[in-house]
């Protein structure tokens, strides 16, 4: 299944690996921070609702 990359295999594979790695890292960072902020916000909203009561 793997295509024959010939003598350029290293270059092609590292390009793909690096690019996909960078995008994956950015996506992971985005999701991680999103979850963190979302959780913190939910807690703060709960506190605020508590205070209003």
């Amino acid at each position, binding site marked *: 299944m793997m295509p024959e990359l010939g003598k350029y295999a290293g270059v092609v594979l590292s390009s793909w690996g690096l690019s996909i790695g960078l995008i994956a890292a950015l996506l992971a960072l985005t*999701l991680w921070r*999103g979850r963190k902020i*979302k959780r913190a916000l939910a807690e703060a*909203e709960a506190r605020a609702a508590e205070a*209003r009561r």
Partner: protein
Amino acid sequence: MLRVIDLACARGGVPVLESVAFTLAPGEALVLRGPNGIGKTTLLRTVAGLQVPLAGRIEAKPDRIAYAAHADGIKATLSVAENLGFWAAVHGQSDIGPAVAAMNLSALVNRPAANLSAGQKRRLGLARLMVTGRPVWVLDEPTVSLDLASVALFGRAVAAHLAGGGSALIATHIDLGIEARVLDLTPFRARPPGQGGIATAFDGGFGDDAAGAFL
């Protein structure tokens, strides 16, 4: 001379004062009181045009207000006369004599500001107000680091300014010995948005966010 209508102002994005209203006629002084953090400095900065009001209006020509805060804009390597002369030039004035005399700085005119005591620096900062030639003084705690004699001196300077048809808006806790109305800011503290206060862009929750469960 200065009219403030239904003014609301914010500090760091949070409303602190609302519905502030007062007028200042020529020859009149208004002293602002209130506990720390109520927003005296914020109000004065807003009146001076350094900050944008959250709501309401300030009716005064911007070229009539002279603002003095905790920092005086004094350059340590310049002499007293050079410091004053610069601000006089900026405001299109040339004579610094009366200001020097009024703040009792005559003996110090040629001394570099670096060698002034804190109180002397403060007096120099207040003398700056006089060389602006502007009628509305907006002063934030002007008597910090002044001794009793200097406070009295400053009180007389303000009184003279008022007698000359000027006016002053002062945040201070010290009695300056001048006739002034007092405005306590405590009743103007901004209410939370739930109780009718001004809501900023992020004061509303996001409600039931269907996709919130998703991402």
